[in-house]
């Protein structure tokens, strides 16, 4: 199948390794990947911070860039949630009814990375090897925004050599919340310290998730504490092989 | 009455009318509200009674099950178990419920102080709900006053089988005709969790509730 990658602005800028991993997994499974260079951002940060006018422009740009894509793969649950929850509402508030139709036509083709693998490509086993102890943070947007639920776990369980440890209170928000982490830094840090404590208690070597935004926040604290626990996007674990380990 | 309150009313209503365009047929709209929740129970009579009794046990209530002919005996049993030699009797309690050898005081408008000093109160009820372990009291003429079911520290309540509904919606429909008289629902004795979330039973209402359940 031909998959068009929407890498998302922050993965593009800050976490290119995640994008490379997505490409590696999909190509290994025999699919072709396409990356439109014109793409930018889904508008989430602006929308969630109150700059909805700006977000609208980003939505329009997204619709234009991905108009002809058959399957859009997004390795970020929160961006997918943004599209599913807010694109229709933004479109409905616009005078041009064609935008609404574009959104309706676009959304069924948008897949979060795990959804794509499990539901559309039916490839729970990606042929990965990752001989480490891993725990999974279930991000709020993967639980409630996109409802991808158990899919990340299904994928992890198929990875050779991986030993999975459950994260206690995995569904508790890590406290990132986009600009919340700046505007309410103290509360964000308090939530983060609970999350970090839970992660350290599992004795895992690696903490994974389907949102690099949460991982950037969690990983930042683990790094500050020199905790020796790595944060890796799920795609990077799935891309890992014994020849090319993550 | 001064003119000011009227102005406030008009202004509030005006603001509401400006804020919402309440066009559309209100009654039809109300009738179209989805009500897919459970509105009828499905339990057999005995199962329903057992559920109700189980819920009451959960609340720490002692339940005395008996037949109509045994009500007075059950009342005597309950009172003895609580070491009561007498009790106030609310309006609407038939004489046949009262056992011999106990001292019963009719509530003919007893003062709050007298109620406070009493050993408890015996009442019937209007209805009960099995699923939630709820007793519904109706007040007003010929019924127990609110104070008499509240100020005494002990409440003994007689509930008959035909009064027990399985679900709340069934009970609500059955008491609907009394919607303009005061109603009290009781689900277990009064309780608080205000101190460190420790559940303490019995704060201001009757601290002990017993039920005679008649089949």
């Amino acid at each position, binding site marked *: 199948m031909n998959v068009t990658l929407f890498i998302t602005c922050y993965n*593009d800028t800050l976490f290119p390794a995640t994008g490379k991993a997505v490409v590696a997994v999909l190509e290994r499974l025999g699919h072709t990947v396409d990356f439109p260079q014109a793409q930018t951002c889904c508008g989430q940060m602006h929308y*969630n911070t109150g700059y909805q006018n700006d977000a609208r422009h980003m939505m329009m740009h997204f619709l234009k860039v991905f108009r002809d894509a058959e399957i859009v793969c997004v390795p970020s649950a929160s961006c997918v949630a943004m599209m599913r929850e807010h694109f229709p509402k933004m479109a409905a508030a616009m005078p041009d009814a064609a935008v609404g139709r574009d959104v309706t036509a676009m959304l069924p083709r948008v897949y979060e990375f795990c959804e794509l693998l499990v539901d559309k490509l039916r490839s729970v086993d990606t042929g990965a090897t990752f001989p480490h102890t891993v725990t999974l943070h279930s991000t709020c947007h993967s639980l409630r925004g996109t409802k991808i639920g158990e899919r990340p776990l299904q994928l992890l369980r198929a990875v050779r050599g991986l030993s999975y440890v459950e994260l206690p209170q995995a569904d508790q928000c890590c406290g990132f919340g986009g600009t919340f982490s700046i505007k309410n830094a103290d509360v964000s840090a308090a939530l983060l310290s609970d999350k970090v404590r839970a992660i350290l208690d599992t004795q895992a070597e690696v903490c994974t998730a389907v949102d690099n935004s949460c991982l950037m926040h969690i990983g930042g604290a683990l790094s500050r504490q020199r905790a020796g626990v790595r944060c890796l996007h799920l795609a990077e674990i799935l891309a890992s092989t014994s020849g090319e380990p993550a | 009455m001064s003119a000011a309150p009227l102005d406030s009313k008009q202004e509030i209503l005006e603001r509401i009318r400006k804020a919402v365009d309440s066009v559309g047929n209100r009654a039809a709209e109300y009738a179209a509200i989805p009500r897919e929740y459970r509105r009828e129970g499905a339990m057999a009579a005995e199962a329903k009674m057992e559920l109700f009794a189980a819920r009451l046990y959960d609340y720490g209530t002692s339940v005395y099950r008996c037949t109509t002919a045994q009500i007075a005996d059950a009342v005597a049993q309950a009172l003895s178990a609580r070491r009561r030699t007498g009790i106030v009797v609310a309006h609407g309690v038939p004489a046949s419920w009262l056992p011999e050898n106990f001292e019963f005081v009719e509530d003919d408008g007893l003062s709050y*102080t007298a109620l406070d000093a009493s050993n408890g109160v015996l009442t019937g009820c209007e209805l009960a709900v099995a699923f939630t372990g709820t007793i519904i009291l109706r*007040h007003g003429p010929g019924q127990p006053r609110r104070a008499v079911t509240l100020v005494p520290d002990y409440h003994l309540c007689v509930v008959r089988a035909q009064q027990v509904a399985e679900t*709340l919606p069934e009970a609500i429909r059955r008491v609907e005709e009394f919607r303009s*008289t*005061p109603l009290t629902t009781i689900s277990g004795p009064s*309780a608080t969790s205000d101190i460190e979330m420790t559940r303490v039973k019995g704060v201001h209402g009757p601290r002990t509730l017993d039920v005679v359940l008649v089949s």
Partner: protein
Amino acid sequence: MSVRVGKAAEAPTFAQAARGMLGNAQLRHNVRHATDVIRARRAHAVGETADWQQLRDSARAIKDHVLRHLDTYLEQFETACKAAGGKVHWARDADEANTAIVDIIRSHGGTEVIKVKTMTSDETGLNPALEAAGITPIETDLADLIIQLGADKPSHIVVPALHRNKAEIRRLFMEKMQLPELGERAEDLAGAARRYLRERFLRVPVGLSGANFAIAESGSLCVVESEGNGRMCLSLPKVLVSLVGIEKIIPTFGDLEVFLQLLGRSATGERMNPYNSIWSGVTAGDGPQEFHVVLLDNGRTGVLTEPETRPTLACIRCGACLNICPVYRQTGGHAYGSIYAGPIGAILTPQLQSMKHSQSLPFASTLCGACYEVCPVKIDIPEILLHLRNKVVKSGGAPLAERLAMRFAARAFKNGGRLESAQKLVRIAQKPYVHSGSIERLPGMLANWTQFRDLAAVPAESFRQWWAARQNKEKK
């Protein structure tokens, strides 16, 4: 106009207030414990209710319907209440409500009033108004009594004193109730409150309450409670005054079958709260013989104006959104500067004040969505938060640095080329701060990030550059 929500207009920003709370270990321990306990109880009670989602759907539909026809239902309520012997007062704002209540109590020469928990009276600042008029309010809900005796502020909608522990309460009771001795168990403390209040229940001739539901067709009020103090205040005094927000209306008595099933389970995790009192007007020979309802607007009609914010008024004050909220769980209620804390407070408090105050509250959320999931009337709180954030930004309420950063980003996101240039710019700008691939200290607004966490440096090659290079290689 004196619309107000307690003293929320003077409160510090959420971030400032929260900082103080986070340092209070006792408070955080108590809040955590309390919310854990209620959450577990709620989950159990909801779990055994097979038709929970259907109940939520109906509740929301009823509330939406009422709000669309609020004028008609309020008038219907007034007519029915009057027919049952009650008196109805309308109050546009807090002062009008307080004045009406003070006048009623004064007309009976009352110097004391027994109160059942009513958040609405905290909203209007009724207690100070009563005291100024020489009337002593006596709070009878155990938690409210703890708050009142300690000259403290409530920190939760349902369990307002959860920030206090047993030892503190014991000390407070011994001092204020003049008890030379008092046991240490919760039972002992509850017993002390029973004795302290009983004499007052039996003696004080004026009662004051709020209401959970006001039934339009019968003009009845319904008060939901656990301790029995409500029943005392509602049935023993000679005169009863109830202060009721106009959004508390439900159309019919039958609608209680929906709300009573939702409220107890959501609020305390009980199948049904121990006591509900329902009454209309006055009943000869039983209960208060004079009854007043004060219907309060105080900013509610403003919330009604926008379809986006209107669902805020569907709230039945169960507190479930507080208990589930990760932010509330860290800070407790005081950080919200208002009687209404947690997610519902974050949307309600600023709106009641026409968005002129408490503007930091809509930002006091990570948008995790847990509140929406538990809300028994399905209020999409995150959605309303976003709407309010947009209002704050549009009215120029956002900090300058943020506005500039957002503008920079918006420009960068116009097309792929611009984004690539911006990425390059950031890579240059970060240089002085990067040490072995990591940033430990940043200036300005971003210091809020690096104060607690490292930031991985922007890598030398973005994904789009890597992709372009790969494509080029393939072509060759």
